[in-house]
């Protein structure tokens, strides 16, 4: 008795399910069923290689639909249903322009760069750290992200930047970094105190003409593209493509870049060696330190 009733109910339910399912899928296909075949003929064969892992776009497509589509959109152009509410806006994968790279400005990032970005997320944005996904799943997502732009089929990633050994952290290095901060006009965007409130801050836009705020060094320990001194070095030597932050690779030498790193660390609310040295110096030479700004001569005396 019970079994018969259950069976009939279940069959009827299944029939309705199929009907509803088909209708819903049609109605929402633009929302929930990204069709990467549009403009990306080799979707399923695209791979990523991260360490010993090989990511597969076909598997990544399912993950993209589950996790990413709401912001990055069914077409990978950053026009997901939530994009209008999000600031800063989600990445447009069809442009293949990425902020966090180990490669020179204007070039494609490596698979590792994309993998690290997915793993780390982006502080002060809506992009979370996807560390809870397995490494294989993240590798699959990297492979799928590469299907959105034909650039990946035509170009190879740039050669990763070689980061030299860090120079000693000294007060001289910090002072020289401070001079560079003035000279390179970093303060115009990031502000004299690194609070992201420079005179140009309110005018900045990204490559999609969306307003964008410069990084506020006083906000914490993490940067958009990492947390270590090496990450910071890499940021201004490669630039953040798609944002107003340029590459300084042609402007500063490696030693100078380290000096800049050491100075920028003093702007953060952290108990670092750099901050300690700077506080000691300020206590002894405070009156001699000229403020950073349009009329200042940076670097102390």
């Amino acid at each position, binding site marked *: 008795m019970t079994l018969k009733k259950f069976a009939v109910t279940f069959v009827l339910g299944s029939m309705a399910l199929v009907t509803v399912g088909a209708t*819903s899928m049609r109605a929402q296909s633009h929302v929930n069923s990204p069709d990467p075949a549009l403009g990306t003929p080799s979707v399923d064969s695209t791979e990523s290689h991260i360490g010993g892992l090989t990511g597969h776009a076909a598997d990544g497509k399912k993950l993209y*639909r589950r996790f990413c589509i709401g912001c990055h959109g069914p077409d990978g152009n950053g026009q997901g249903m939530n994009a209008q509410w999000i600031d800063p806006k989600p990445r447009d994968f069809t442009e293949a322009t990425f902020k966090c790279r180990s490669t020179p400005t204007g070039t494609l990032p490596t698979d590792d760069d994309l993998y690290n970005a997915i793993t780390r*997320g982006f*502080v002060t944005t809506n992009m979370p750290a996807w560390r809870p996904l397995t490494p294989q799943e993240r590798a699959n997502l990297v492979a799928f992200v590469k299907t959105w732009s034909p650039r990946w089929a035509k170009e190879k990633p740039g050669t990763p930047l070689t980061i030299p050994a860090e120079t000693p952290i000294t007060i001289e290095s910090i002072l020289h970094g401070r001079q560079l901060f003035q000279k390179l006009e970093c303060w115009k965007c990031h502000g004299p105190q690194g609070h992201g409130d420079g005179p140009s801050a309110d005018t900045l836009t990204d490559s999609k003409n969306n307003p964008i705020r410069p990084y506020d060094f006083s906000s914490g320990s993490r940067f958009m593209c990492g947390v270590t001194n090496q990450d910071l070095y890499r940021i201004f030597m490669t630039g953040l493509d798609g944002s107003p932050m340029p590459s300084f690779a042609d402007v500063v030498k490696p030693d100078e870049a380290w000096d800049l790193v050491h100075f920028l660390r003093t702007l953060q609310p952290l108990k670092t060696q750099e901050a300690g040295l700077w506080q000691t110096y300020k206590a002894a030479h405070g009156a001699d330190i000229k403020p950073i700004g349009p009329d200042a001569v940076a670097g102390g005396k």
Partner: protein
Amino acid sequence: MYKWFANGADRTRKSWVRPVVTCALLMLAIVIGDCRAVSALPTRKVMAIPAFARKYGLPCSACHTAWPELNNFGKVFQDNGYQLMNDRDSLIWQNPSYFPITFRITPNWHRESTGDQPVDSIPGGGTGSTIISRNVTQAAFDLSGMDLWSAGTIYKNISFVLLPSSDATAVWHFESAFLRFDNIKGSSWLNFKFGRFELDNLISEKRFLFLSANGGFYQTYHFNVPGSINDFGIGDNQIGVELMGHNADSSTRYSIALLSSNEGGTNLTESNLPGGLPSNRSFDGYMAFTKSFNAGSWGYEEFQAYAYVGQRGTYYQTTSAGGGGPVPLVALGNEPFYRVGFAGQLHFKNLELLPYFMHGHDSAYLGTGLPDTAGLPIGAKAPTFNGGFIEGQYFVNPQLVFFGRFEKIGVTQQAFVNEGAVPGNFGDVTAYSVGYRYYPIMFSRGGVAWHNEYSISKSIGIVPLSGDGSGLPPLLPTNGVWSSSVFIGFDFDF
């Protein structure tokens, strides 16, 4: 079940035609209604949104395998105090109009049938009527209870939950309410929770996929050996404090909780609702350790070991000063019990298996329901049981999941071994549930699931724990009471 009785179930109905026709009409209505809803669906202008999706702009599927069940990302989010840890979690970053609230209710049609129910041989009783055993079946459109769930962050690293919950008749209680201090001293290993909350069960009964009267709870999570006055259920929210920690991806977690010995009761009673008996002055403890392993393309394989040690009173300090008989004031004579076991959440790509095992042990005084100031009857034993289940879920895609469960509880030691009328398997439970959920609408801002489920359970000699806990024991303690549920409904989350 009791209500079906009281309202006069049509016990003479033998044909299955009527329920089938009803079901078919329902399906037709569902199909037509759903098509309209989907066709008219605005993809960008939905005004009301579930709390976290609204806050972060992530789709439901980012945190849920199939809501309400959390996936690994959702668990990490929960462990972080409902924070993505991107320095935009504090409410200060939200639009002032943001209000972190969600509600959930499930209009449904369900059919409940229970065998071996003692009924009058002549409806209405009277002369010549005797008590006989018979199936009692009833079916109707219905409502579930409602959750009005508010949760999120008060400030960076200070999170909260407030969950007023009602039954289908709008009798409300606080299912959950706590404040949590997250990442104390910057460490994810130190999180402190204060209030009423769900225990750190790897397999959450609060977030599982089953809704029917027989399948909508884990029997093991609420089982006590028949005759025991212990009211503990590991699936029930408890009240107290919890220290919990985890690593960055929550692959290693611990939880230590100190809880009032009153089954999560409020107002110093053993119940959330008015009229509960007074509680005692003791505390329980719960510990859980969870570890997950990366199984490559299969996903993460999670394992948890847990232990709950508690006490319950066996009699009351009473007063008869007011007349009208003794009034219980506070529970006394605490006697111990414990529950230990393990759980797993195993992923095999789209297939998920959830094994669970529990061993339960109550003091002989709890088992016999006697005050511990009295001597135990000869042969009285501390009752024990082993229970567990294996649940399977297959995710066809983020919008469609099939699920099933087999559950078994065996009483390994009865409290009264010298009473011949009590069979050794008295209280044993066997339960099966199958079903599917289809999510025609799974926005980042709301969701609808169409839920179909069938469940059936057998309880030896006792009242089935069929959802609302009503029903009647069979005439003979050796009889197995079969209770089945068919559940069809729209589960929606706003």
